[in-house]
């Protein structure tokens, strides 16, 4: 039996799926441009703006559904989670834009050592895909895996930060050119935030399924 | 899809045509029916109106102080009055009501509040309805056989008894109906307050049923005030005032009958006067009771008052 509420829920669901695809593309394209040195700032900017608009649309639709239909139980949890998830996707877009902005500002970094960033980028790519998969299949256990992966991302970030600030860093050729390590540090920071938001998406999916917050370590 | 829509449009048009044609025919039938109903009302009122008119016309001349306060004198001369009959009617009807009303009310309460729909209550209701339809002369015979033969004389007791058994079935039915009309939600509310059943019946349900019961009693009293046949065999009739409950007494219906059977014009005239007096008594009784109930409950005496 189709309720009036179901029409609204379907619409929110479709917007979230669109945002998922768009934000994934944004991040992957931004990382790609870091690797290959391509300039795609305006496109990423457009996508980021689009994600922000979609996020507002989700929020508006959510409160309209709540005001009109007084949803309860799973429907209510779904609506609340969609508000959080859409915010997460808009953040993906924003950080993708920030990454590309760093590259613009720094200019040429093709001679830099990109190994740390690329290592973290690989994990973050996986995390994004896992969070999207969890959303599509309503997998409540994905959150746990995501947190484990988030741990490795955090560890990598901290390691790089420590290495920069220790006295031996002057000798390390990675830290000779400020453009290299500043851009790397900023991008690592953004990637770390993206990974956090991927975890939050996993949390939201867990909440939709079980009605409880996922147990964090 | 388009075919369906145009078919619906056709049907709609057809229905509107039929209904507009019908409405002009309906108006005519409406008017005819209204006229017919009014004719029925008038023809029902005509006999009533003409009776009242006749009684007043013929009886008003007989009314005088002497008429109302003196015992009967010579029929031929048209002297005297019908005072003992007036007194007798009041006493016998009063006594009959005192016997009949409580018995009737309590029986009605039993049937409505305490009995279910089992064999015994259904039988009681059935026989009650039968009794309301019995010819009143039968009640007279019963009164004769039970009281007159027992006490050895025609008496007020016998008359009151006979009238009361006419009254009781009417009061029983009216009481049961009045109680049944009271919505069950009232009783439920009272139960939920922890009030015992007998108190609910007497103090709460009764209050709502009161006006209906009183209407019924007024009707029953009006009826028995006019009954002649049962009185013939029980009170005998006399020209004397009240001499005791075990003695005979006169009553207006009897007196009217006696006066009308005389060959003298003066007696007939007195008979009309007595009839007028009887009608007036019943009318005053109704009005007084209505006003009494209205003042007590603040509600007009209306069977549908709840």
């Amino acid at each position, binding site marked *: *039996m189709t*309720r009036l*509420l179901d029409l609204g829920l379907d619409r929110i669901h479709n917007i979230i799926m669109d945002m998922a695809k768009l934000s994934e593309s944004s991040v992957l394209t931004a990382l790609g441009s870091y690797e290959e040195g391509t300039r795609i700032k305006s496109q990423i900017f457009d996508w980021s703006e689009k994600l922000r608009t979609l996020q507002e649309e989700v929020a508006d639709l959510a409160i309209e559904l709540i005001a009109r239909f*007084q*949803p*309860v*139980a*799973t*429907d*209510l*949890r779904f609506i609340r989670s969609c508000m959080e998830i859409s915010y997460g996707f808009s953040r993906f877009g924003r950080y993708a834009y920030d990454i590309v902005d760093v590259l613009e500002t720094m200019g040429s970094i093709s001679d830099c050592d990109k190994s740390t960033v690329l290592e973290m980028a690989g994990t973050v790519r996986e995390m994004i895909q896992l969070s999207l998969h969890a959303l599509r299949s309503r997998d409540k256990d994905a959150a746990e895996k995501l947190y484990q992966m988030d741990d490795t991302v955090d560890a990598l970030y901290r390691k790089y930060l420590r290495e920069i600030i220790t006295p031996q860093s002057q000798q390390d050729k990675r830290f000779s050119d400020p453009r290299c390590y500043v851009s790397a540090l900023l991008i690592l920071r953004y990637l770390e935030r993206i990974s956090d938001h991927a975890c939050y998406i996993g949390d939201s999916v867990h909440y939709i399924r*079980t*009605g*409880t*917050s996922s*147990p964090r370590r | 899809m388009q075919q369906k829509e145009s078919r619906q449009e056709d049907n709609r048009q057809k229905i509107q045509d039929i209904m507009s044609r019908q409405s002009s025919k309906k108006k005519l039938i409406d008017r005819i029916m209204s006229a017919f109903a009014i004719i029925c009302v008038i023809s029902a009122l005509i006999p009533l109106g003409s009776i009242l008119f006749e009684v007043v016309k013929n009886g008003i001349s007989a009314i005088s102080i002497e008429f109302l306060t003196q015992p009967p004198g010579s029929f031929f001369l048209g002297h005297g009055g019908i005072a003992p009959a007036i007194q007798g009617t009041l006493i016998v009807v009063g006594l009959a009501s005192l016997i009949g009303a409580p018995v009737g009310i309590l029986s009605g309460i039993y049937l409505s509040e305490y009995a*279910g729909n089992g064999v015994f209550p259904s039988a009681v209701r059935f026989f009650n309805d039968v009794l309301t339809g019995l010819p009143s002369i039968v009640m007279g015979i019963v009164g004769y056989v039970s009281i007159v033969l027992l006490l050895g004389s025609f008496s007020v007791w016998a008359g009151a008894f006979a009238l009361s058994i006419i009254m009781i079935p009417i009061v029983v039915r009216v009481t049961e109906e009045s109680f049944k009309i009271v*919505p069950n*939600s*009232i009783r*439920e*509310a*009272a*139960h*939920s*307050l*922890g*009030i*015992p*059943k007998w*108190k609910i019946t007497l*103090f*709460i349900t009764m*209050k*709502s049923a*009161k006006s209906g019961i009183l209407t019924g009693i007024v009707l029953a009293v009006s009826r028995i005030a006019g009954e002649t046949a049962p009185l013939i065999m029980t009170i005998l009739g006399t020209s004397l005032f009240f001499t005791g409950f075990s003695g005979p007494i006169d009553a207006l219906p009897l007196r009217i009958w006696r006066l009308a059977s005389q060959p003298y014009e003066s007696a007939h005239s007195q008979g009309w006067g007595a009839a007028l007096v009887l009608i007036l008594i019943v009318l005053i009784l109704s009005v007084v009771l209505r006003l009494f109930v209205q003042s007590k*409950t*603040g*509600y007009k005496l209306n069977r549908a008052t*709840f």
Partner: protein
Amino acid sequence: MGSKESFSINNSRVVEPLQDNADGKSSATVKQYKVSIRNLDAWYGSKQALKNINLDVKANTATAFIGPSGCGKTTLIRCLNRMHEMTPGAGARGQVILDGINIYDNKTVDPVIIKRRIGMVFQKPNPFPTMSIYDNVAAGLKLNGVKNKRLINDIVKESLEDAVLWDEVKNELDKPGMGLSGGQQQRLCIARALAMQPEILLMDEPTSALDPTASSKIEELVYNLKKNLTIIIVTHNMQQAARVSDYAAFMYLGELIEYGPTNQIFKNPQKELTERYISGKFG
């Protein structure tokens, strides 16, 4: 959070059945509950309307019974003050324990007297039609032997205040009760029930016949009455149940499906049937 708070029959928090020689321990656990229902079955003739209901109601809370038509919620509430058996052919079996006393124990409990401790408000307002506002509220007291006029006056005033009707009628106490509007009549009925100083107030769809403004007045007063009373309300309006109650019991076809704190039932019900009903996915 993660742990279930539902009072399901397998949950060890369910109270042990009281025995005649209850030891101190079990009765101490029972005392936090105002009403405990144990193994309650009820019938209309041969049709069973309630099947093995077990439920504990905490004191000074509002509990809502929800469920589709015919689920037994009205039957259940009417069993709690022994009104159910007044319907011809109706019967019930089991225990309803009020402060440690089983009200179905006919040897020690008089069904008429027990009703004085449990007030009831009905779906359609039913003030006594021939009585004034004052007499309506005082009816229960007067007909149960209270004669002290000053005491009755005080109680009438207090009850009308608790029912948020005093200000509207204080100068018209002798006017007929039926002259009030629908919402006012229902508050009058509440005042009439409150005058008996009950410990529990049973409300059977009290706002079904009222407009939204009148309904919300009554919902607010339920909130205030909780301080001194335990309230059980049957409603088919789920949003009302969500607004007004602390605990909710969902019933279906005569059985208790789920019972727990309202915010849990409405945010995260444990049983699928409950979820489907409250989400509007069936009747």
